[in-house]
Structures are given as structure tokens and as C-alpha cells.
């Protein structure tokens, strides 16, 4: 009889359990990734391929990849007669060639880039503002005797108790009166006001976990409270600040409803712009997919760069060191 391996750990998961867990995680990841993969695939199809049935899945086998979606995303085109097209000088660049083949000419850049820049400014601006205000408020709530502290904290939380869009009409009217409609400042302020409550609550938790002794030690050692906050508290709250910043950024970046309602031109962000692409010259799904794919990149980069902090952030305080 072979020896029975009884030397198993009670805390380490067994190999079998690990395998089951891995398979489940892989399956879930696959399901979650399918829409993203589909967006990526659609963005490199021609409009015809994108709506063909049965769907064309594997590039170079089922369909030839094309940059038409990206070309269309960045340009505005107009349909012309073949005679006119023949009178033009030869096309320059791949995009123009594709456009000509569709009996169209490029008449200018599309609004995608300005909208994208608006999104960047508004999302990062409101995140920055939310974090600055949130950190200051959270520190005060955590350390000082604030009159009616519990009531104020509840009040701050209560702003999240209904969907923000429920106050859309009052905000719309207010913004019109204040001249904030369709301005970047207006959108930054709006997203900040939604995010700051989340930031205060999350950051208060993180700052509560930082022992007061650190600041007290610094204050005895000749620093002012502000210096102690800057040199001692802030470096230790970085993890929490990063985690909070990612949450704020994701909200502000993806927000659609207010953006549709309050912006239309100068301050319009990418989310309300992307669906409009569909309407420009037929059902241009590849262009929509291209716009969406590019739209995902900043959050992806931001999250990947800071993922170490994020992981530590969401498990922060779970186990006391």
C-alpha cells in the first residue's frame, strides 16, 4: 500500500480547490471580456462586415481587418458624384482612399478629438477637485471636534441616496440661470458635487485608520498641524486617495445622463458624442466601436498604473498589522 499523504495544511487551499477557483475565475473573466473583445473586433471591420450574419469573428479568416472605423471616427465626410471624385487629385493616405471607395470625400476632422479632450479635462478636473475637497473634509471629520459631526456625515451620505439624475431638472434650470450649461466648469462642479460625498466617506475611513500619534509626534517635534498633515498623514493616506480617485474618475469619465442633458457643444464629453456617430452616414458601427475602444484607454492606463495601490486600498484595514 502506498503511503497516504496526510501532511496537508488546514489554511492553504488544496490543489483541487485552487483548480476549481482558477477555472471559475477564468470563465468569469472570459464572459466579462467578450463585450470588450467584440468592441475591438468591430472597430477593425468594415461596416458591411460588422452587421453580417452569421457574425464574422476571426480576423484574416472571416474578414479582412480595416481601419475604416477609425478613419470615419476622426473625419467628417460628404457623398459626391463619381464624376466629381474622378476630377479630384489622387487620394493621399489610406483613409482618404477608403473614403473615396465609398464615393465620399473627407471634408474635415470630426468632433471626436475635442469631445475626448473635454472628457479628459472634466473627468480629471472633477476627480482632482473631489480628492482635494474630500481629503480636507475627511481629515477634519476624522480629527477635529466638528459640531453635529454625525448629522453632517449623514447629510453628506444622503446626497447619494437617490440617483443623481433625479435632480436633473432643477440642476438643468439652475445651470441655465447661472450660465453653467455646456461649460467645462459646470460639468467639473457637477461631477465633483456627486463624487465628493463618496470621497469624504471613503477617505474618512482611511484617515481614521492612521493613528493620531503620528501627527502628535510631528507636532511635538516642531511641525504645525498643516505640515504634519502634509508630511505624515498624506503619505500614509496615498493608498486610500488612489483608490478613491479611481472610483471618482470612473464615475466622471463614464457619466452619460447629465452629459446628454447639460452639454451639447463646447463642453460635450465623449459619452454623449459616441452614439451620435451612428447617425452620420448610415449605421457606422465600426466608427462607434473605434470611439468606444479609444474611450476605454485612459481608465485602463490609470487603473493599471495604480493597481498596486488599488488592491491595497480596497483591503486596507481588513487586517491590523
Amino acid at each position, binding site marked *: 500500500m502506498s503511503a497516504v499523504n496526510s501532511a496537508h495544511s488546514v489554511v492553504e487551499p488544496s490543489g483541487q480547490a485552487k483548480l476549481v477557483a482558477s477555472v471559475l475565475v477564468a470563465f468569469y473573466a472570459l464572459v466579462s471580456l467578450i463585450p470588450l473583445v467584440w468592441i475591438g473586433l468591430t472597430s477593425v471591420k468594415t461596416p458591411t462586415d460588422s452587421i453580417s450574419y452569421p457574425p464574422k469573428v476571426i480576423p484574416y479568416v472571416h474578414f479582412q481587418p480595416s481601419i475604416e472605423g477609425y478613419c470615419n471616427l476622426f473625419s467628417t465626410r460628404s457623398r459626391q458624384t463619381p464624376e466629381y471624385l474622378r476630377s479630384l487629385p489622387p487620394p493621399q493616405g489610406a483613409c482618404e482612399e477608403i473614403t473615396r471607395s465609398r464615393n465620399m470625400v473627407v471634408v474635415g476632422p470630426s468632433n471626436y478629438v475635442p469631445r475626448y479632450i473635454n472628457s479628459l479635462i472634466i473627468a480629471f478636473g472633477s476627480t482632482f477637485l473631489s480628492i482635494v475637497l474630500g481629503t480636507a473634509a475627511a481629515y477634519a471629520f476624522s480629527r477635529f471636534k466638528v459640531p453635529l459631526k454625525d448629522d453632517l456625515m449623514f447629510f453628506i451620505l444622503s446626497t447619494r441616496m437617490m440617483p443623481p439624475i433625479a435632480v436633473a431638472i432643477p440642476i438643468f434650470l439652475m445651470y441655465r440661470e447661472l450660465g453653467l450649461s455646456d461649460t467645462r466648469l459646470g460639468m467639473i462642479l457637477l461631477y465633483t458635487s456627486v463624487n465628493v460625498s463618496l470621497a469624504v466617506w471613503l477617505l474618512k475611513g482611511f484617515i481614521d485608520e492612521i*493613528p493620531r500619534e*503620528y501627527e*502628535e509626534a510631528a507636532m511635538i517635534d516642531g511641525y504645525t498641524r498643516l505640515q504634519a498633515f502634509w508630511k505624515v498623514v498624506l503619505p500614509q493616506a496615498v493608498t486610500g486617495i488612489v483608490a478613491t480617485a479611481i472610483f471618482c474618475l470612473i464615475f466622471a469619465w463614464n457619466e452619460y445622463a447629465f452629459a446628454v442633458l447639460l452639454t451639447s457643444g463646447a463642453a460635450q464629453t465623449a459619452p454623449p458624442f459616441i452614439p451620435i456617430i451612428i447617425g452620420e452616414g448610415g449605421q457606422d458601427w465600426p466608427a462607434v466601436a473605434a470611439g468606444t475602444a479609444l474611450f476605454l484607454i485612459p481608465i485602463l492606463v490609470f487603473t493599471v498604473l495604480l493597481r498596486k495601490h488599488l488592491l491595497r486600498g480596497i483591503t486596507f484595514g481588513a487586517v491590523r498589522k
Partner: protein
Amino acid sequence: MAEIRVQNLVKTFADFQAVKGANFTVNDGEFFCLLGPSGCGKTTTLRMVAGLELPTSGSILLDGEDVTFKRARERDIAMVFQLFALYPHMNVRKNIAFPLVSTGVGREEIRRRVEEAARTLRITHLLDKSVSGLSGGDRQRVALGRAIVREPKAFMMDEPLGALDAEFRHIMCTDLRNLHDRLGATTVYVTHDQLEAMSMADVIAVMNEGRIEQLGSPREIYDRPASMFVADFIGSPPMNFLHIEGTVAPGDNAIAIDGARIGIPVLREGSVETKLVLGVRPEHVTLTDVGSVRGEVFGTEYLGTMQIVTVRTPRGVVKARIASSIPAHAGENVGLAFQTDCLSLFQAGSGKVLASALHDSPMAGVSHG
């Protein structure tokens, strides 16, 4: 270094009075210990001296200068916290240098003084390590380094050994006292551990419920407890209490217990209260066949050369610390004799000791009235 004078210090939190009028003076270069059970106000007192808490009333003088409402950073005091409060995002060198950076001392000077402090504490080899990997004892040394590097007027220590294990605590006690002697630094040390206080302090203030019950040298506090609380808090096992009734007048040199007369140090004051308590340290109890206070041996604890014998008497349980060679068995009926010149007599109601010949001569090494 400096003298610290605390006058009528009161601290009230909402409806709770944490410190009820503390008065004491810490002389220049003295190791002063605030000792008491948790919640007695000792840490609050320390924090007020350090400037982390503002008193409700009273005053704090540092070298004659009123610093009562000055900010902590303006007092030139260093503090060591129970949990060390080392900044985890800085290495050992930066932690120790941190107090110097705020003073605007030059880079070379900081380097020199940090290394000097590290040498004093024998932690030079740790200077470039991260604080998170250090053992409790090394963290303690780094925290001390951060305190001594600035050469402040006084040191505040809030249970600095509380987070260490028992064995290491003992070593640190010796190290701390040596460091104190070398630097000659005025030190205020807070602890709930009587052994730490007794072994290190020049002067101990025993606190209870926001009041200083007694102020004196470790010997004075042990030998002449001013109240039943102090007698009970100091000593292991604590002082035995025998509850008796009767009146005493100045000049009395004995009290009656169950018809027997027990000799006591000559009383210098009498008591109108009739409920009294005779306090006797376990080492001042001997077992005898003829003793007038009798009881039944309840149990014995063997401690090597000594043993603690617990005897149940009609007046209360008495513990005697006697040589292990003396036979004592559970259930035995024994008589107790007390060393008369070491006994204390308390008023049961107020818990205060009655002045007697025991308190006549000033104790050596005590500078406080």
C-alpha cells in the same frame, strides 16, 4: 534641561473630569513617574504637559515660563508614544532626523546628530533600514532616538514599554534608566506597571480617579502609603487590610483586635471615625503559635526561597511572605504576628492614613513635601 511645575491642573471632557487638580514639580534632571490604573488621568496629565491637550484650568510652567496654552511645537519637549509612532514611509535615519528638519538645521549637522543619537542607542546598523521590518525593541530605540536627537528640555514617555514583551521590557527598563542618567534629562514617564515605576523613577506620583494620591520616592510610597489605594496598588501581593473598630487618639501605640492588643507606631493624630483599617505588608507578617490574631491557612504559593501563605482570619484574608522552609499546610490553624514599627493605620471611610511615628523622619532621597 528643565524643571516642570504643574499647578492645579484640571481637565474636563464633556461631563467627565479626567484630572482633578494635579500639583507636582519635576526637578531638573529628575525621572518622574506618573503611575496608576488605566483611566486614572495619568496620560491626560502627560498630554497636557506635552501640549497635545489643553487644560480646563491650572497652569504648567517649564523652566519658570508659563506654557499652559502654548502649542506643542513651541515647548521644546520630546515624546515617546506607546505605539512608537514611527513614520512607516520613512527609513530609520529619516525618522530620527524628522524633528531636526523642522528646526532648519543644516544637512551635515543633521547627519552628525542623527549618527550620534544612533550611537548612543547602539542602532547605527539600522539607520538605513525601513522601520516596518524592525523588532519591537529596535522600534523602541528608534523612537527614543527621535526623542533625544533634538536635545529637548524634557522627555515625555507614554507607556513606552507597554508594547514590548515582558523579558525585553526588563532590559529596556535598565537601558532607559542608564540613558536618563547619561543625558541627565528631565523625564516624565507614564505607566500602569508598578515594577517599571519602582525600578526607574526618582519620584512617583500615584494617581487614582484624576487625583494624585501620593507623591514620593519609590521607597516612601511602598513603606508609607498615604492611602489605602496606594497601599493596595503598590506591592505584589498588595498590603493586607484588617478591618477593625475603635477610637484612637494621638499618642496611642497599640490598638485592640478581638481583645488582643497589637502594637503600632505611635500615632501623631487621632480619629473620630471608628471604622479603621490596619495595613500590613505581607513581609511584615510572621506565623506564630501564640499570636492573638488567628486564622486558618487557606493556601500556599511556593516562590522558591519564599512562599506566600494565605490565611483566613475573622478580620479578613491575610497574605504572609515567609521563608519556604517554614511549614504551612492548608487547613492548619495558625496565629499571626506583625512587625509593629512598619504598620499603617487607615480610616476606612476616607482611606487616608493616620500620621504616626512611621512618618516622622523624612525619607532619604525625597525632595518633595
